[in-house]
């Protein structure tokens, strides 16, 4: 980082963790993280376009290698959905789980891009103020995903059990449907209802964000001298390998929770 030699550690990390923003209104809320939106949309279009391209040429005979690869992913997601959900999963749940898995995996995989080279590319080549390439390290993305899943969960609860059934479930379970217990039940369910999207989104966000920070700290260490460079490279490589696991694992966990939440909405207590 010869161009940033005058920078302090704080400004180095801040620079890496600044979103490329674009204001569309007066208040801070009307801001768009251009980097997050562009990268995630690009990945989504490429990923799902690829799937659509493979699938539109799918044969029921002997599949080619490309189709077999996609079928592996399908089979993987479908197996998880089959194990948890006992309705017609092909209509909605399994494809939704596939969407979550593929998209989150691709967005997480942006973490594989080396942070400093990307920073140099975006600021010195494209002359952008800042750019964060990992959409899932932006809490807006993970909250967006978990809130959509949360809304789907409520939607299916209402569709399957009816408004009455859902309300009854909110106030009548898990302690019993005695009127005196209604407030307790409701409080209990409220906590569960609120904690679901929070834990769902913060788990992914925390993992990816922390992963980025660890890379940045190792990068800073590498800038301190010869031994720092040696250990920085060594630990950086180790962390990168470990990160391959985290990227896939977090995508898998996010998909599993999506399946579990929506499947639970289909089952009455």
């Amino acid at each position, binding site marked *: 980082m010869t161009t940033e030699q005058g920078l302090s550690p704080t400004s180095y990390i801040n620079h890496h963790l600044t979103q490329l923003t674009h204001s569309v209104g007066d208040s801070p809320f009307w801001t*768009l*993280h251009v980097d997050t939106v562009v990268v995630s949309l690009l990945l*989504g279009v490429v990923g799902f376009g690829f799937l*659509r391209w493979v699938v539109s040429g799918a044969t029921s*005979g002997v599949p080619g290698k490309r189709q077999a690869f996609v079928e592996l992913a399908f089979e993987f997601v479908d197996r998880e959905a089959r194990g948890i959900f006992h309705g017609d999963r092909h209509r909605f749940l399994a494809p939704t789980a596939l*969407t979550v898995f593929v998209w989150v995996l691709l967005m997480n995989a942006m973490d594989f891009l080396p942070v400093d080279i990307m920073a140099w590319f975006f600021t010195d080549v494209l002359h952008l103020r800042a750019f964060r390439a990992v959409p899932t390290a932006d809490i807006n993305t993970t*909250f967006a995903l978990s809130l959509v899943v949360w809304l789907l969960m409520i939607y299916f609860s209402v569709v399957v059990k009816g408004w009455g059934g859902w309300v009854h479930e909110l106030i009548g379970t898990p302690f019993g449907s005695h009127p005196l217990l209604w407030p307790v039940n409701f409080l209990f369910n409220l906590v569960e209802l609120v904690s679901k999207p929070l834990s769902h989104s913060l788990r992914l966000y925390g993992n990816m964000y922390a992963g980025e920070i660890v890379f940045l700290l190792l990068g800073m260490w590498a800038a301190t001298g010869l031994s720092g460079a040696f250990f920085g490279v060594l630990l950086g490589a180790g962390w990168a390998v470990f990160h391959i696991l985290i990227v896939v694992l977090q995508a898998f966990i996010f998909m599993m929770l999506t399946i579990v939440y929506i499947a639970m909405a289909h089952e009455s207590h």
Partner: protein
Amino acid sequence: MNINLTLFSQALAFAIFIWFTVRFVWPPLIKAIEERQKQIAEGLAAADAGRKSLDTVAQQVAEIEKEARKKSFEIIEMHENRAKQIIADARDEAHAKAERIIAQANEEAQHEAARARETLRVEVGNLVVQGVEKILRREIDPKTHVDILNQLRKEL
């Protein structure tokens, strides 16, 4: 960590991607996979049926083979019997013929012998008569004794 409009744009994008996958990605491939599962199941069933019919045919073949072997043995036995019969018949016929020939020959020989004996007798008679004639010419008149001579000739 600030929540802003990005949240909603991401949620919208997510919803669109879900819709796209549910509508355009999942159904064609799951259809192809299920079709293939059906084909494989049918193929396995067909293989099973084929194996079963093969067993049946093999059993039938074995039965036919047994039958054929039995029949061929029967035919061979029949023909052997017939050959024996023919040989026996031929032997009998030959026997009969030989006996006939021998009998005929015997008869002929006896006949011949009788004839020879007759001839011999006549000749010997004549010879004796001639001899006796020669002896008796001087003493016996042949004309008077012709009946005696003739009788004698007959008795010889």
